[in-house]
C-alpha cells in the first residue's frame, strides 16, 4: 500500500508505528536491566538470555512451519518474550529448563491460542510459573558472588534486616533482571517517553501495593520495610514490563486502573499472607485472566450517549 496516496474512509491511522517498532523499543528499554544482570551474575546470565531468546524464536518459527502459517518472527514479539522470561530466571538454571520454558511460553501459551494478540496470559510469565511449579528447586536457588543466599524478599519475610541501597543498585541475589531497580526504572522511563506504555497500570499497581503493605504488612510506617518491599523481587519488572503487555491488559483507561489495583492487592496478599516470599508473577497471570471481565464493566460511554435509567433495557 502506498503511503502517499491511500483513499479510505475514516478513521485514519496516521501513525507509522507497527508491532515490530514497539517490540524493538521494549527490547531497548530492557537492555539496561539485561546488561546489569550480565555484569552482576557473569557470563552464565548472558548464555541463559541467549538460550531463552533462541528457544522462543525457534519455537515460533518451527510451529508456524508445521502448521503452514505466515512467519511472524520478524515482529520481534518472540524475542521480547524470550528476553522477559530470561530476566525472570535465576542465572544458575540449567539451560535445558530455560529451553523448555521458551517452548512452553511460545507454543502452549501463545501459538495454540492463535498467536500474538490472542494469548490470554503473558507468555513469559506463564512459562515462569510453569518452571516454578515444575522445577521448584532450581528455580528458587539463588547464588550471588559464588555463595547460595536468600533473596532480599526472603530475608525480609524471615524478619531480617536488608540493605535497601544495595537493592536499588541491584547488587543482591535474585533472578537475572529483577535485582536492579535503577536499571529497570531507566528502561521504564524510555517506554513512557516514547509513549509505549502509560503510567496507569504501573502507577496504580505500585501505589495499591504500597498502601496494602502499609496497612497489612505488620510493620506500621516503617520506611525501610516499605522501600524494601517495593524494590524487592519482581515488582518493578512486573509492573512496568509485564503487567503493561498490550495483549493481556485492559484497553479501557478506567480498566487499566482497576487492573493495577487488582494486581496490587493480589501481590500484597501473596507476599504477606502467602507461604512464598514472592507473588508478582502469580498476581499478574491471575489478573490477566480477569481482563475480559474488567473490560466489560469499564467500557467508556461514547460522547453524547445518555445512560439509560435502570438496568431493564438492554
Amino acid at each position, binding site marked *: 500500500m502506498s503511503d502517499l496516496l491511500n483513499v479510505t474512509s475514516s478513521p485514519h491511522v496516521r501513525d507509522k508505528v507497527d508491532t515490530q517498532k514497539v517490540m524493538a523499543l521494549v527490547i531497548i528499554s530492557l537492555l539496561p536491566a539485561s546488561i546489569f544482570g550480565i555484569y552482576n551474575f557473569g557470563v552464565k546470565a548472558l548464555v541463559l538470555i541467549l538460550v531463552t531468546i533462541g528457544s522462543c524464536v525457534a519455537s515460533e518459527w518451527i510451529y508456524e512451519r508445521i502448521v503452514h502459517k505466515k512467519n511472524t518472527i520478524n515482529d520481534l514479539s518472540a524475542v521480547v518474550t524470550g528476553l522477559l522470561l530470561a530476566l525472570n530466571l535465576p542465572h544458575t538454571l540449567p539451560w535445558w529448563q530455560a529451553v523448555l520454558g521458551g517452548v512452553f511460553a511460545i507454543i502452549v501459551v501463545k501459538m495454540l491460542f492463535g498467536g500474538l494478540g490472542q494469548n490470554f496470559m503473558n507468555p513469559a510469565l506463564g512459562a515462569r510459573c510453569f518452571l516454578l*511449579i*515444575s*522445577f521448584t528447586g532450581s528455580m528458587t536457588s539463588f547464588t550471588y558472588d559464588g555463595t547460595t543466599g536468600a533473596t532480599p524478599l526472603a530475608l525480609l519475610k524471615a524478619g531480617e534486616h536488608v540493605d535497601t541501597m544495595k537493592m536499588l543498585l541491584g547488587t543482591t541475589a535474585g533472578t537475572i533482571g529483577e535485582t536492579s531497580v535503577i536499571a529497570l526504572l531507566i528502561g521504564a522511563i524510555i517506554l513512557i517517553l516514547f509513549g509505549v506504555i502509560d503510567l496507569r497500570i504501573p502507577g496504580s499497581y505500585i501505589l495499591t501495593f504500597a498502601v496494602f503493605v502499609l496497612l497489612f504488612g505488620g510493620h506500621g510506617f516503617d520506611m525501610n520495610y516499605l522501600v524494601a518491599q517495593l524494590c524487592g523481587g519482581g515488582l518493578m519488572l512486573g509492573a512496568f514490563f509485564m503487567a503493561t503487555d498490550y495483549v493481556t491488559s485492559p484497553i479501557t483507561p478506567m480498566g487499566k486502573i482497576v487492573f493495577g489495583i487488582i494486581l496490587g492487592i493480589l501481590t500484597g496478599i501473596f507476599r504477606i499472607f502467602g507461604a512464598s516470599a514472592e507473588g508478582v508473577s502469580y498476581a499478574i497471570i491471575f489478573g490477566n485472566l480477569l481482563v475480559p471481565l474488567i473490560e466489560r464493566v469499564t467500557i467508556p460511554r461514547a460522547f453524547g450517549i445518555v445512560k439509560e435509567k435502570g438496568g431493564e433495557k438492554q
Partner: protein
Amino acid sequence: MNKIVERLQNGIIKENPTFVLMLGMCPTLAVTTSAMNGLGMGLSTTVVLVMSNLLISLLRNIIPDRVRVPAFIVIVASFVTIVQFLVQGFIPSLYASLGIYIPLIVVNCIILGRAESYASKNPVVPSIFDGLGMGLGFTLGLTLIGIVREILGAGQIFGAQVLPLADAGKAGYTPITIFVLAPGAFFVLAALVALMNVIRAKADAKGKTIAPATGCFAGDCESCSMGSCSGKSSVKADSVAKEEE
C-alpha cells in the same frame, strides 16, 4: 457374535468415552496422577458399568418411563457401594489414592449415559458388552493419560522407575513436577485428544475411515449418547409433535 464385537469396538475406539465423547472428565483429570490410579479407576468404573447395564437391561420393560432416572441411579449406586467396599477391603492403597472419586462413580455421566441410551433399549447380552466396551475404552484412556503423566512427572511407569533420576553430580532425568499436579492433567489430555484427531484425520485422508465422530453419520441414533445432538433432538421433537397431534 457380530453385535458383541461391534459393541466392544464402539466403546474402545469409535466412541471412546475419554478421547471422542469427552465424558467423565472429572475423574479423568483428577485421578490420573499415575498409571496405576488410572487403571484402578477405569476398572472400577468398568465393573459398575457392566453390572448396571446388565441389570438395567433386564429390568428395561419393568421400569416405568417416568421414574427411569431415579431407578437407574439406585441400581448404579448399589453397585458403586459394592465396588467401594471391595476396593477398600482388598486394595487399601488404591482406595487411599482414589479417595472420594470411587463414590463419585455414581454420578459419572458415562454410566448414566449408557443406561439411558443403550441398556434401557437393548437386550441383555449386547448391553453387557456395550458396558464392557465403554468401560475398557475409559480404562484405556485413563491409563494412557496416567502413563504419560507418570513418565513425565516422576520418571516411572506403574511405580517402576524407568528413567533414572538425576542425583547430585549424576546425570539423569529431572522430573517435571507440573505433570503430576492438576495443570498437567489438562496438558496431557489435550495433547492426547489432539493426537487422536491427527490419526483420525490421516486415516480419513487415506479413505480408511476409522470411525465418524459419533454414531450420527451411520444413522445409529439408538446407541448414541450425545444428548445435545441436533439430529437426535429433531427426531425426538418430531415424535413428540406427532404424539400431540
